[in-house]
């Protein structure tokens, strides 16, 4: 039940996964189109989603084509994510390394953390206006948290013996941080980055409530206002595809950086 030859297992999983997706799509078609068990007004039929996709690809929807919306959102997510990395990881490392810094910063961090992106939108608008800054701010807020937490946990999980060993070889604090603490935290930092990236994408819809001209979040918001289920599904799929693609890219980077890790 728990073992098996790896390649065979992979093939099987791939096969079952593909079959499941096909089965769900078929069930969807049957329920909405074949038999009309479900009212197509509540769950759009595949043909309606297809038509919505055609519409947004050819004629555009909410002011632009799907491609333009996606590129715009990608830009926003990239910026929010980048700012989260640049601010979150050093803060997490600092809090992990120094218990004093932890005691100083952590309570505030814990108090601000549960406030969702959506709740910041009124302030984002009055502080940053309707430009991209406000949207990047909202994305940063959510992407920031996993970056901090995982960098923090990463430092705390570095084997103290490694630090002791480096010390006995005459390493200075800076050398210990550079050669032991940071590489030792890297696996968890990457876990955090993956969560941050996911958070960035899931916050996009909220971020684009800050008066967006383009973007997948705007597509979803307008489709929601128009009660256009086909387009809502198109928007959701587009966000999911962008999220999966960027996560895959991050995975490539991770494999390069963590090449020293035992292949699992």
């Amino acid at each position, binding site marked *: 039940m728990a073992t098996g030859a790896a390649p065979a297992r992979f093939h099987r999983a791939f096969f079952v996964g593909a079959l499941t997706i096909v089965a769900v799509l078929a069930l969807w078609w049957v329920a909405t189109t074949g038999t009309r068990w479900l009212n197509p*007004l509540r769950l759009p039929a595949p043909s309606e989603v297809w038509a919505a996709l055609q519409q947004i690809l050819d004629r555009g929807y909410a002011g632009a084509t799907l491609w333009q919306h996606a590129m715009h959102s990608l830009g926003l997510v990239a910026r929010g994510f980048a700012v989260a990395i640049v601010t979150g990881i050093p803060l997490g490392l600092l809090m992990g390394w120094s218990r004093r810094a932890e005691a100083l910063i952590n309570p505030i961090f814990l108090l601000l953390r549960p406030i969702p992106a959506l709740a910041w939108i009124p*302030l984002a608008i009055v502080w940053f206006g309707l430009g991209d800054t406000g949207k990047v701010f909202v994305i940063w807020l959510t992407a920031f948290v996993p970056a901090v937490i995982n960098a923090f946990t990463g430092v705390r999980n570095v084997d103290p013996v490694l630090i002791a060993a480096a010390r006995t070889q005459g390493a200075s604090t800076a050398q210990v941080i550079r050669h032991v603490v940071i590489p030792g935290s890297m696996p968890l930092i990457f876990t955090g980055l993956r969560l941050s990236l996911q958070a960035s994408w899931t916050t996009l*819809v909220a971020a684009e409530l800050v008066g967006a001209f383009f973007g997948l979040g705007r597509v979803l918001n307008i489709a929601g206002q128009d009660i256009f289920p086909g387009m809502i599904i198109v928007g959701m799929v587009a966000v999911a595809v962008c999220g999966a693609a960027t996560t895959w890219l991050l995975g490539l980077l991770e494999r390069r950086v963590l090449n020293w890790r035992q292949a699992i």
Partner: protein
Amino acid sequence: MANRNFLGPAGTVLGVVEFWLLTLAGFTLFFGGWMLVAWSGLMPANLLPSPLAVWETLVRLWNQPFAGHVYAEHLTASIGRFLMGWAIAVAIGIPLGLLMGWYRILDEIITPLFDSIRFVAPLAWVPLAALWFGTGIGGPLLIIFVGSFAPCLISAYRGARLVEPRLVEAAQTMGASGRRIIQHVLVPGAMPSIISGLRVSAGLGWQSLVGSELIVVGAGLGYLMVQGQGNLATNIVIAGMVGIGVVGFAIDVALRGVEAWFKRRWGQT
């Protein structure tokens, strides 16, 4: 011997007094900085009211109804909504995650479906939630459910996969049936992972709350904030954020307590 921090994080443990002094200093810096910015006139009050103004607003909202209810009623409405949605996520996510860990076929069926909706924001479900479940309770609950379901499922699944295969084998050699193995080996073995997953999921579920209050209104912190914004009352908006922050913090602290209790009981440190 002066600097004993040479071992880094593992080497230093703060004294109780020093810890609380630093915590206090952190709060002082945060609120003091806020107060200074608010009072300096750099930010007008409708952009950033001072902490004192927010406090006064809180006291007022506590005693006088705003948007139809006093603050405590908004709080309880939000908490009730959250608890229901979260309970459903836990009730479905954890058993499903355990079963996925135990039956590989279920894992293979669900994982691709699950992966494909992971990136979709809870907020994106708002229009569909209203369409599918209306407002009675269903719509708002779906949003919280979507927000908190994933960590429940993943943590139970990971927990089940991390159970020592030898424990399972030992139970099998003692003649335990599948059901008994799940009950006596799998669930307790997965417990530490489940508990930490509960913490994460409660946090995320609470964060979806404001989104859920976009579907139907009446009472709730999110509603309070939107109405405050409609009145150009940033102090009310921040008062709502304070409530969300404090309750979220309390939920986290409570679940941390549960986590610590379990760790002690199961002899992990």
